[in-house]
């Protein structure tokens, strides 16, 4: 936190001074062996990794050269693992790992598919097609039509309401926010920061086209959103 308050120029010089005290081998050891491994293991649960945890458990006394460590870790993820290290929340400093490589085309029988991806697609799909915000009732009724009933234990998903409003929210796939001034209390869903980074709206619309047997471009509004004129994909959400 001390580092943050410094002027950018001061900061870099401080990092350099810190680096001079440590041997390059030591930094590499920290970066490759510990930060990368810590993040890979942490990513198993898909809950964003907090900078505070990284510093507390791994970086420790090397915190003065933290920016350099993260830069090297990002390079390792990029070059060795084909993953992208993304800071989804620059205010609270949270990181996620995203697959940088294209998915293999065709029916590749890989590890068994995760059914949660299907559930996420349904929810994110409805939110996207409805313009970005959807009341929770819309989601619950849609899921009900897909034989997934909230308040009942589902064979595949167990407690669906908990999975959607707790797990998916903590993983930052979804935002679940109370709508102000409603009686009884109502919530609405939006895409979470992870979804913004991880899910391709263009590919989602493509799948929609397949489901509806129509051209994805017929959803003009969504198509424009999925294909912004400047090819830069929407990064970390700027809605908030």
């Amino acid at each position, binding site marked *: 936190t001390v580092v943050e308050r410094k002027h950018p120029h001061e900061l870099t010089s401080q990092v350099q001074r810190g680096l001079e005290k440590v041997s390059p081998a030591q930094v590499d050891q920290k970066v490759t062996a510990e930060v990368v491994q810590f993040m890979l293991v942490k990513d198993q649960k898909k809950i964003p990794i907090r900078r505070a945890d990284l510093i507390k458990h791994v970086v420790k006394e090397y915190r003065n050269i933290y920016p350099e460590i993260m830069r090297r870790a990002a390079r390792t993820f990029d070059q060795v693992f084909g993953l992208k290290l993304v800071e989804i929340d620059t205010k609270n400093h949270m990181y996620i790992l995203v697959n940088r490589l294209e998915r293999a085309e065709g029916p590749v029988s890989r590890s068994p598919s995760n059914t949660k*991806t299907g559930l*996420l697609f349904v929810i994110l799909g409805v939110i996207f097609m409805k313009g970005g915000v959807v009341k929770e009732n819309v989601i619950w*009724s849609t899921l009900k*039509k897909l034989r997934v009933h909230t308040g009942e234990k589902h064979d595949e998903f167990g407690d669906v309401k908990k999975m959607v409003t707790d797990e998916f929210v903590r993983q930052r796939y979804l935002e679940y926010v109370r*709508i*102000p001034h409603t009686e009884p209390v109502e919530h609405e869903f939006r895409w979470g920061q992870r979804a913004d980074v991880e899910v391709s709206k263009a590919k989602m619309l493509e799948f929609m086209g397949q489901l*509806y047997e129509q051209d994805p471009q017929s959803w003009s509004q969504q198509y424009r959103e999925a294909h912004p004129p400047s090819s830069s994909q929407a990064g970390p959400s700027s809605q908030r």
Partner: protein
Amino acid sequence: DSSQQRPSRSCPGPNGARERSTTRACGGKSGASTGTSSPRCSVSDRRDRQSFPVVVHVLTDCPLAFSENREDMLSPSNNKLTEVLEEANKLFKDVRQAREAALDAQLLVVATDLGKEKATQMFAEGNAFNPTIFAERLLSFMGLNRLEDGEDEQQNGHAADGYLPQDAWHRLARRAESCFSTAPSFHYMIGSFHAEPPPPKQRTERQRKTTSKEVKRMMPTQLKKMDDSHHEATEKEVERILGYLKSYYQDDPSSPISYYEFIIDPNSFSRTVENIFHMSFLIRVSLSHCELVCPLVAMSRSDGAVCVDRMELIDAFEIREAMIQTANTQNE
């Protein structure tokens, strides 16, 4: 929400009064809101309750009207939301008290919320996305068999037509994965320590505890036994030898028993040594009614050294048989 309770307290007969006033208030304007209770109703109410600040009544009534007529307000076919806002703007000129201003702010919050929702509707109007149709399409994709009725669903009482196969969600997930660039989760090839250390720890602790307890329990008893058995064994042996001595003595009380003849076992050196050892106890406790004749000992004593060859003694005394039978052979 306090804003909803307040009007019910201040209005004695809400419904009747409001409908009356609505028709009066709306008479001159467009007929869009005829029949239903409009937020503007309260404008006329001020005439009935002149003792109260004007704006308070209007503003307190408005949120109530909002929540009651939410859907009505949202309908794209009218401009009620705009009308209410214009009315509130007019009234805001008369606002003098902080409480009134706060109510005005609250009204704006609700109005903004409604406006946002209305805007969302407009967005969807071009190609309205219907979640119900979406669900139907998804069910088809997931392999719903609309002819067969799922037995489970019927039993559970769900109004489900068609049977959804077991791998339905897997089918959807496999296709949907293409939209996600999720990082594959990392797993150790040989596996790592499981992230649940308590159970194995407890197990080892338990084992250790039980074994150490058993050892503790076993040790004293074992030692006691050893002690006891050793002591008893010696005692028994001594008694046994005393028994032999007595019986030999009774056989021929007149002649003394030769010490060496008595103790030497011609077949076993160790038995001989044992006999000497046990015999020494009898001598020590002075069971001397058995006289011991041992000229050789006396002789060796004069030499100052005890050097007795067992074999020589066996020859000298012509010992053919042990006088003291071993305990085992005796038992047999």
